[in-house]
């Protein structure tokens, strides 16, 4: 099997995630799509790690996971706050900055 297949898969997942970020209005789902993109990136890191026979790629993926966890914590807290004040989790409703 061609090692590039993992990368193609990762590219596909990343693109799907990005598309989801763009078209979904529910902030939580948008967040999930971001997680999907991060995971796709992790997959490439792991695949490259294996390709090069080097642990650094895995360590990068580990850090990505940690940072993603931190991001999820804060992001979800923000969503909860937003929901409390606006009774909606739609990203389109938080458009107060527009003219």
């Amino acid at each position, binding site marked *: 099997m061609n090692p590039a297949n993992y990368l193609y898969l990762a590219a596909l997942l990343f693109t799907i995630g990005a598309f989801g970020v*763009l078209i979904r209005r529910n902030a939580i789902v948008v967040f999930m799509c971001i997680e999907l993109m991060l995971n796709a990136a992790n997959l490439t890191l792991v695949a490259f790690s294996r390709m090069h026979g080097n642990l650094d790629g895995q360590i990068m993926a580990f850090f990505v996971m940690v940072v993603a966890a931190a991001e999820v914590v804060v992001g979800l807290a923000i969503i909860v706050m937003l929901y409390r004040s606006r009774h909606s989790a739609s990203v389109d409703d938080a458009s*107060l*900055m*527009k003219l």
Partner: protein
Amino acid sequence: MESLIGLLVAAPLLGAAVLLCGGRRLDRAGHWLGTALAAVSFALGAVLFFDMLGRSGGERTLHQHLFSWIPVEGFQADVAFRLDQLSMTFVLLITGVGTLIHLYSVGYMEHDARRRRFFGYLNLFLAAMLLLVLADNYLLLYVGWEGVGLASFLLIGFWQHKPSAAAAAKKAFLVNRVGDAGLAIAIFLMFTTFGTFAFGEVLAAADGAGEGTLTAIGLMLLLAACGKSAQVPLQSWLGDAMEGPTPVSALIHAATMVTAGVYLITRSGAIYDAAPNAQTVVVIVGAVTLLFGAIVGCAKDDIKKALAASTMSQIGYMVLAAGLGPIGYAFAIMHLVTHGFFKAGLFLGAGSVMHGMNDEVNMRKYGGLRRHMPITFVTFGLGYLAIIGFPGLSGFFSKDLIIEAAFSAGGVRGWVLGGATLLGAALTAYYMTRVMLLTFFGEERWRHRPTATPAEPDVEPAAGRGAAAPGRASGQTAGQAAGAAAEPHPHESPRVMTLPMIVLAFGSVFAGGLFNWGEAFVHWLEPVTRFEHPHPPLPIPVITGATVAVMLLGVGLAWLQYGRRPVPVTAPRGSLLTRAARRDLFQDDFNHAAFVSGGQHLTRSLVYLDHTVVDGAVNGTAAAFGGLSGRLRKVQNGFARSYAVSMFGGAAVLVAATLLMRAV
């Protein structure tokens, strides 16, 4: 003694400050304070005068150096006073007549709610005028010069609720500004030429400077004098200035401020003596103005405007005399002083008449007032006799001397000037007799007033007559409305008003004779102005006889026209000259055509240019950016997802660029 000079100025200045800053609590007694401070100034002047008499001719000039105003290397401006015989004459005239008019104003302005302010302005005027005549250098003189301009502006527009008064004040201020610019330029020229402004140094050095420079300085000073003294071509403001209260007209626009130009020319005599061309222009301006004013005076139906035209004409006499050089300076000042008496008296009389006639100013609606206002009639009559030069009264001496001096100018010039002054004397007699007859003699036209008064000829509805025209028209109609409301009940004015008139009448009668007693006045002024005896081509008795003859001719003509026949209340159409004179010989029209309309066209085109080109460029840029941002704004719709698309697209482009770079 020197230390008293500053107090002369300080007393009225203090009065102005207290009255203008003191507020309403001074309303009840403020006018007496103002009058008292004017009197204090007069008393100080008298003390200084007698002190001066006690000294011999050479030591009579006093100097007081108060402080260095602008002490810069190479530029020394001092606040210093100079009291010599010329200044002394003016000080006595200003403070004397000023005090009398303050007193008169107490009665005249009695019912005016802003009387305190009026007295504050009057005191301010006195201070500025004294500063003007006492200054020891041209720069300080300029301060006083502007000060009297300011006071004049404030007082002409004192009844600021009348649009006509406000417009007249503005007009006077603007026209004076032209003259003031002349004075400023003259001072600049003096500084560059002589390096100083002080009278003593400038006048002593005048001979040494080039004639071209001196001519320029002389012409600029003349421009200043024309502005302040209402000489042709800057004469147009004086008639409108009659919108101010009558005491103002008497003090500022008859006796004192308008003669400042004569003072300036006389004071700068040394410059003119060294610049004959400038002197010629001075003489021409004087002669033209004296005839101009006299002609306008013959046609005016408004008593104050007739007197204002007369003032213009009489100052023309003075300027003419001052332009004749040492033979005329003393006579100019002498006529100035006698004129100060009788013209102030005449104005106060006119004010008294208006006071009794519900502020009516149209002489055609007077008539027969001598029975109702005997004191006013007598004092006005004495002033009248003085101004027409009735033998023995003030005007006779002073005017006759000027006519003699004019004839002495030499050659054709002498004959022309002499003829002009004689013609002026005849016209003076004519228009003053007309004023006298219309006001105090004849039937009492105010009794049989038609209910609807047609428009006065003075107020021809002309659209393009300059700034003051509409205002004047409305002022007149307001006066008519007030006059039509109730038939006037002419009555003599209160004592406080008649007293100054009586004093001034005494001056009108005796001042001339007193001054001419052994040429006392001439000798008094000689150390300052120098003096040469005039040598007219004709014997002096002939000239005097001619003067009296033309005077009688003028009186007779006026009597034929206004004394024998009843005077129509509505002015007849009159000849072309009459109509022109009613319109001030088209001076406003001329100014309008020559300066105002040109300026207006210029400003309009500049405004157009500003709107289309400058604003067009600016607004166009703004509109272009506005339109662009209006379109770009739609990108900023506030939705995070839209921004995310842009970001995502950008990322895609970056990836594409990276790959493309790798591929290349």
